């Protein structure tokens, strides 16, 4: 069918393909590509100081900014924090989103009122991160605040108030939780969209084979979600490694740098204190490299596993078909 479609299109239409991508390409080049190059160049210059836009390429050691960033303990901590917080948020997030997707797209045991649940679950995502950060800061206040109020006076679990703002672990967990809480609904909706796009025939075939819900989910739904899952993973990874609003506004990267993410670090270097644009640019490029490597790994892992799973599935299908044919002929 696909090849038939391609044949319908005449070659003369190719120019419209180019025409239609012009806005995207133009804006991309001006507002995204050029600034990226600019940032890359700044990383090799002496550009720093309040509102300074003049710069010279570094003489002597051209990698001086990169060296100073790589040796910067706060940057190392920030990169580690970013990855740790992302993992702490993403694993529960994707697990929960998958579970909800399985429930909401289940064909035998339908969930009543799933519309209202979907709307509610996506709601945390529509709120400005600034609002969420202030809200959670107020919720976890010490010594008096809603959560401490609940733990001590209302439920009596704790003797005295717990200082959530001084504990590095608690702060990380709270930031990760906020991220999880904000994004699980979004992830769920993307995944549901992906499942709805899977050809119903496949499911019917599985039903005929007598596969149960769990089998269908793992053998059919997940392998067929490949592209969408990859999309979710990559966008979440990028979003996660660029995490800025919540850590910045919740505790300003503290306590003791425990929630300082790479983006918060870059912002602090570039837009406060001594305005070290050059060092911040170098840090940005390093982050880009980290993200590119992580994404490449994801692409690689997903492709391999998927291909393998698909191959296995096809083999099973063939086997099943052969068996069916066999049993039929036997009968």
């Amino acid at each position, binding site marked *: 069918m696909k090849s038939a*479609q391609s044949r*319908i*299109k005449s070659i003369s*239409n*190719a120019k419209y*393909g180019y025409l*239609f*991508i012009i*806005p*995207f*390409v133009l*804006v991309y080049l001006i507002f995204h590509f*050029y*600034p*990226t*190059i600019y*940032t890359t160049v700044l990383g090799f210059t002496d550009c720093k100081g309040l509102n300074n836009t003049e710069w010279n390429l570094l003489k002597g050691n051209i990698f001086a900014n990169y060296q100073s960033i790589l040796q910067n303990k706060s940057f190392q901590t920030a990169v580690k924090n970013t990855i740790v917080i992302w993992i702490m948020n993403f694993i529960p997030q994707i697990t*929960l989103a998958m579970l909800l997707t399985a429930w909401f797209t289940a*064909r*035998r*045991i*339908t969930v009543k009122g*799933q519309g209202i*649940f979907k*709307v*509610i*679950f996506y*709601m945390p995502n529509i*709120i*400005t*991160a*600034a609002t969420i*950060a*202030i809200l959670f800061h*107020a919720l976890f*206040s010490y010594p*008096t605040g809603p959560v401490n109020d*609940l733990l001590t*006076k209302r439920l009596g679990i704790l003797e005295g108030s717990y200082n959530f703002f001084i504990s590095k672990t608690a702060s990380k967990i709270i930031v990760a939780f906020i991220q999880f809480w904000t994004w699980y609904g*979004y992830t769920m*909706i993307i995944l549901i969209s992906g*499942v709805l*796009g*899977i*050809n*119903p025939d496949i*499911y019917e075939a599985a039903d005929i084979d007598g596969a149960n819900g769990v089998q269908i989910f793992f053998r059919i739904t997940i392998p067929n979600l*490949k*592209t969408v899952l990859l*999309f979710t993973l990559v966008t979440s990874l990028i979003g996660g490694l660029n995490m*800025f*609003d919540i850590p*910045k506004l919740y505790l300003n990267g503290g306590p003791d740098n425990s929630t300082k993410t790479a983006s918060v670090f870059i*912002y602090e270097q*570039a837009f406060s204190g001594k305005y070290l644009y050059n060092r*911040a*640019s170098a840090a*940005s490029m390093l982050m880009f490299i980290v*993200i590119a490597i992580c*994404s490449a790994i994801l692409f690689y892992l997903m492709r391999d596993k998927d291909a393998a799973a698909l191959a296995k599935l096809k083999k099973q299908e063939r086997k099943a078909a052969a068996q069916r044919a066999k049993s039929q002929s036997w009968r």
Partner: protein
Amino acid sequence: MAKTNYDEPKSAKGPLFYGYKVFQYVFLIFLAVMSLLPFVIMIINATRSRSQIESHAISLIPGTNLATNWKVFTGKSFNVTTGFINSFIVSTGATICSVYFSTMTAFAIVAYDWKFKKAFFAFIMAVLMIPPQVTSIGMYQFMYSIGMTNKLFALIVPAVAAPSTVFFMRQYMSGALPMEILQSARIDGAGEFRIFNQIALPMMKPAMATQAIFAFVSSWNNLFLPLILLTDKKKFTMPIMVSQLNGDIYKTEYGAVYLGLTLTVLPLFVIYFLLSKYIIAGVALGGVKE
């Protein structure tokens, strides 16, 4: 719709089935409460007095201090109307740009055959990976040097190039755009732009609405770029204003702060519920299409 209504197998309706059902609903309701609770606390605290909040920060009983809080709040140098209008301009502008041009770009990939099509799509996937913070310093210096700081325009136009939306639209389109219809329109003598605007676009509506929600929300909530590009108070968007809500740390009026937070959220609730039917219905993406 992929979901077909089968009769539930009779064998599943044992006690185990009901136990599973109960667990499922309990869990879903727990999640719903978790998602809603902070909003409830926020809205209720907006009606309570400062001393009430100080002694018991959580309560499910509204107070009677709404009017007083409103007075304190409006006395602050925090202008909700300005922030809301600015955010609205930026977000709707960016949403239209991103959804319209992304659909157009996706259309170019799906509907036409051209030499660098595959390479271009790979390029978009790669562009997805470039984090906005990487470009921010260059962006700031660039915008600063061409005098584009303090222009809301500068926050809208970059949305034309939204790789993730292009990706999403392309996925949807490759499953839901019948080429035959385009072809017959061509035979009727329609131009390519008319075909796109009058035939392809309406067919993409469900996916566009979903992407519109996402684009609107992410633009509305964007803090990083506005924070570095806007310095004129009259141009501040809502997130900047909220992040400065504790404007005067020497005087703490918690009730008023909660009221301010509530006000920032309410307009978004309205827009969200207008479009929420697309969240409920769901959009089918072509998951396995190459």
